[in-house]
């Protein structure tokens, strides 16, 4: 569709209308973020009065000072980094060798093992048995529990397996001639050839770890171990229960709205930083995963 000439006036109207509509959708997607950013830099008084529409009103960074001076904020930030990095490395340590083994034609019972993976995507024991299992394994309230408990994911495993299966046999033959064993073939042949697929899986892991909330909330009680998302939730929930928060101060320099907005901005920034890298891979990743089961 690229180099097509516009033939008629109708086409021109169509193309322009279409652009306007897409532009409007993009703006309506972007607007809430701009609103939140502006809110976070406005004074509590202006926020309370509903005067913040697009740009910061009565510019101040007091909401950020309030958030950044809370030690709990930094603890949870650090924890999120631990869960994200630890969890992603753990996932890759399971998924890369697992996917390689599942992709090998000589694997005995290959159909059975693949079905065993696929079945977990169709049938799930549910919240309660999973929770009780984590408790029985002694993994409540532990860093290790969060990191290991969500390491393998059927979708990612199958995505990488499909990619490995698509690598022509000729690539590994030279290495086999040199007497390479399976580990060496995986390490020296398959992994370098699969960089985009591995990056895709790693980025999926990073995003889901960074954003992970529900199980962290359920499995972690200790305030020193909670990740950013749980901290964010606690803060927004307690602040919104206490609607008068901040406004009792004489200058009302911050309020529930501005502090919530400031925390939101602080936790979005790392996502925005990695987003360009993610974008490079995820389109390909989605299509890779969709090809075969």
């Amino acid at each position, binding site marked *: 569709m690229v180099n097509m000439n516009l033939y008629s006036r109708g086409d021109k109207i169509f193309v322009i209308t279409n652009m306007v509509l897409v532009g409007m959708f993009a703006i309506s997607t972007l607007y809430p973020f701009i609103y939140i950013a502006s809110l976070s830099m406005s004074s509590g008084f202006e926020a309370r009065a509903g005067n913040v529409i697009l740009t910061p009103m009565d510019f101040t960074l007091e909401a950020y000072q309030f958030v950044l001076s809370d030690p709990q904020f930094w603890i949870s930030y650090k924890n999120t980094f631990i869960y994200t990095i630890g969890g992603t490395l753990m996932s890759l340590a399971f998924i890369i060798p697992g996917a390689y083994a599942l992709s090998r034609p000589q694997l*005995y019972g290959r159909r059975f093992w693949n079905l065993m993976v696929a079945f977990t995507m169709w049938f799930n024991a549910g919240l309660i*048995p999973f929770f009780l299992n984590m408790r029985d394994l002694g993994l409540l309230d532990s860093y290790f529990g969060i990191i290991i408990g969500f390491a393998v994911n059927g979708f990612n495993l199958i995505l990488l397996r499909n990619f490995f299966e698509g690598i022509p046999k000729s690539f590994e033959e030279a290495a086999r001639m040199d007497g390479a064993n399976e580990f060496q073939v995986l390490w020296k042949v398959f992994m370098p050839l699969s960089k985009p697929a591995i990056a895709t899986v790693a980025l999926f892991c990073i995003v889901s770890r960074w954003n992970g909330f529900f199980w962290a909330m359920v499995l972690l009680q200790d305030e020193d171990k909670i990740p950013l998302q749980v901290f964010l939730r606690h803060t927004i929930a307690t602040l919104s229960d206490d609607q008068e928060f901040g406004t009792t101060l004489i200058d009302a320099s911050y309020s529930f709205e501005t502090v*919530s907005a400031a925390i939101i901005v602080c936790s979005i920034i790392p996502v925005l930083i990695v987003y360009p890298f993610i974008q490079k891979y995820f389109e390909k990743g989605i299509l890779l995963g969709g090809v075969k089961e």
Partner: protein
Amino acid sequence: MAIDNQQLETSPEKLATRARGVQRARKPSRIERISDHLKRDWQIYLMLIPTIIWLLLFLYKPMYGLQIAFKDYSIFRGIAGSPWIGLDHFQTLFGNDQFLRALRNTVIISFYTLLFGFPMPILLALMFNEILNRTFKKTAQTIVYLPHFISSVIIAGIVITAFSPSAGIVNTVIGWFGVDPIYFLTKPEWFRPIFVGTGIWQEAGFQSIIYLAAIAGVSPTLYESAVVDGASRWQMMWKITLPSIMPTIIIMLIIRIGNILEVSFEMIILLYQPATYETADVVNTFIFRQGIQSGQYDFAAAAGLFNAVVAFILVMTANSLSKRYSRTSLW
């Protein structure tokens, strides 16, 4: 299996062939074959083992734990030691108004999400496809994919802030038209529109990727001959692009219907409150409250089992339908 073996044993012909086989070169038994495999390919199995153990420990063991749905579970007796009570929990479940309400809400919310959320990414993909300016297209795509990567806690935080009764932008805007502030998130009638709308805002852009990929696969010759025939872009969009991606649309629709019990309950937990349970409470949030918050594990597990079995049947049906459909329509 058992019947097969018997037939094998009793059929004289097969017995004879077997006997001959034994005389010539003894066929290796199953165990010998496996041990041969292990000797040759042990490294592959070593790579597979951690994943298999993980699956058994974290996904299959909970399936064994599902038996508490039929038991009077107590923490002290454990899963195996708790006494069986048959279908008692299921009887209670189907007499429980809250559960039935949650079931109804799940289906209703899913239905609305499907009705309003399903066409949106298709429309977006068609529109993206008609944009000639590459930079504009790329920028718009970058923006609309973004919310997919933002956590539900943040999205909920934005929603809570934007709909806040005292200062939220939504109340400010309706105030311009003389409407009194509404505390939206405490109003049962507003929950579903807000939830479904948020879902569309967050996911529509990202979901358009799959349709864009389908559009990219449409043969350019179709458009070329249409241009020769003097077709307008509008006509080409409806008469060529849309019909060409119809198989993808139908497969996605089947898959979505198969997942009708999958509501993003994490978002619901973040947005609902007792005042809106009436329209907001879904099966998974019900299970969460009954089980994890109130400690009625066995009862909640029964609700979960019911949910999982129905979901499994729906997904399997959808899978086989979409497989059959894609075989007949694509090739």
